[in-house]
């Protein structure tokens, strides 16, 4: 605890905690469990829709992708209509920014080690229409996709201790026509990282649904469309 402050902030915060304890009304663990279970059912539905979009359009499969995967009975997902082109001045790729999203250029090149946030200067940042955000970075990489994914997963485990050490799912995805992998991390929200290696450069695109993920999944679907629109520098 603090060792150098003569004003006793610990005591002040302690009084705050006591005060709030006296007037706060806990909603109960049971309510949290019930909400979590209901939300889990909804998220599985959204994830299944996303999986179908990825598999159907990027990998070339149609219809059912597995023996027991049924399209969930969710409401229709609105597709973004007008998209603007974005060319990364730092990393060189071009993509179509979903309608309603905003994009901001990175101001520094990523060194491949620095921990990244959506606010980091090393990332090209894309902000969705709800609380979702996305960012993209790249670094030189002379080995293959599998080796980069292994490296990335190990790096994520070191730098994100509150997330699982490994992604819950890895599935193929096409990024600008190049084979890639989509890693799904069940952090406190479902984080997607799409990775590909092209001409000696590893690119990754992260999707974070934000604190309150859109239950209709529209931003997530927009992210997947954005991946397919990527064009790499020649």
């Amino acid at each position, binding site marked *: 605890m603090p060792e150098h402050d003569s*004003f006793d902030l610990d005591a002040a915060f302690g009084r705050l905690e006591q005060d*709030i304890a006296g007037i706060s009304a806990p909603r109960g663990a049971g309510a949290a469990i019930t909400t979590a279970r209901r939300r889990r059912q909804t998220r599985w539905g959204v994830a299944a829709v996303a999986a179908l979009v990825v598999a159907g359009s990027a990998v070339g499969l149609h219809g059912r992708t597995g023996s027991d995967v049924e399209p969930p009975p969710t409401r229709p997902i609105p597709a973004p209509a007008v998209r603007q082109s974005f060319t990364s001045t730092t990393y060189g790729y071009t993509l179509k920014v979903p309608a309603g999203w905003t994009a901001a250029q990175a101001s520094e090149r990523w060194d491949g080690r620095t921990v990244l946030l959506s606010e980091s200067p090393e990332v090209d940042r894309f902000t969705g229409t709800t609380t979702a955000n996305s960012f993209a970075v790249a670094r030189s990489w002379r080995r293959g996709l599998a080796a980069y994914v292994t490296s990335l997963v190990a790096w994520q485990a070191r730098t994100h201790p509150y997330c699982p050490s490994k992604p819950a799912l890895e599935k193929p995805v096409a990024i600008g026509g190049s084979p890639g992998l989509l890693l799904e991390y*069940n952090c406190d929200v479902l984080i997607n990282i799409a990775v590909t290696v092209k001409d000696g450069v590893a690119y990754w695109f992260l999707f974070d649904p934000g604190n309150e993920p859109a239950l209709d999944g529209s931003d997530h679907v927009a992210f997947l469309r954005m991946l397919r629109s990527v064009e790499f520098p020649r």
Partner: protein
Amino acid sequence: MGTSQDDFAAFYDATWRRTVACAYAVLGDLGAAEEAAQEAYTKAWPRWTKLASYDDPGAWVRQVATRGAISGWRRRRTATRHLSAAGPPESAPPPDENTVALVAALKQLPEAQRRALVLHHLAGFSVADIATSERCPEGTVKARLARGRAALVPLLGGTPNGETTHA
């Protein structure tokens, strides 16, 4: 209830007040703080098997609750406000004046400093823990704490030598 749910319920009861206090210190609104705290527990339940093995699973919940509180506060600051229907929780007595003064002072600080102070002094995080969770160097956390304290003390009527001018 199964054992796991019983354990989670006991954990909830034991840690709720500090969790909601952390969110309140960041947000300054009790109803919103309770929402943020409840949301943190909702996120904790699906990973309870893993969290239960932590030395202090309450730290995870406090961290998530304060992050949620910051996110909510940030959204309210930048987005269109349409909160009028909700209003304050019914029949909740107001916090006492010292609590109100502390929260009002905290809200005058930059977000990063406020968050560092709350995580350190109330949530019980070490500088290293905050650096990890905030994904920044320890020196940055120390600087935020020092600047936050320096800014907070006069706002609370204190003086650099530790004297206070009100309770």
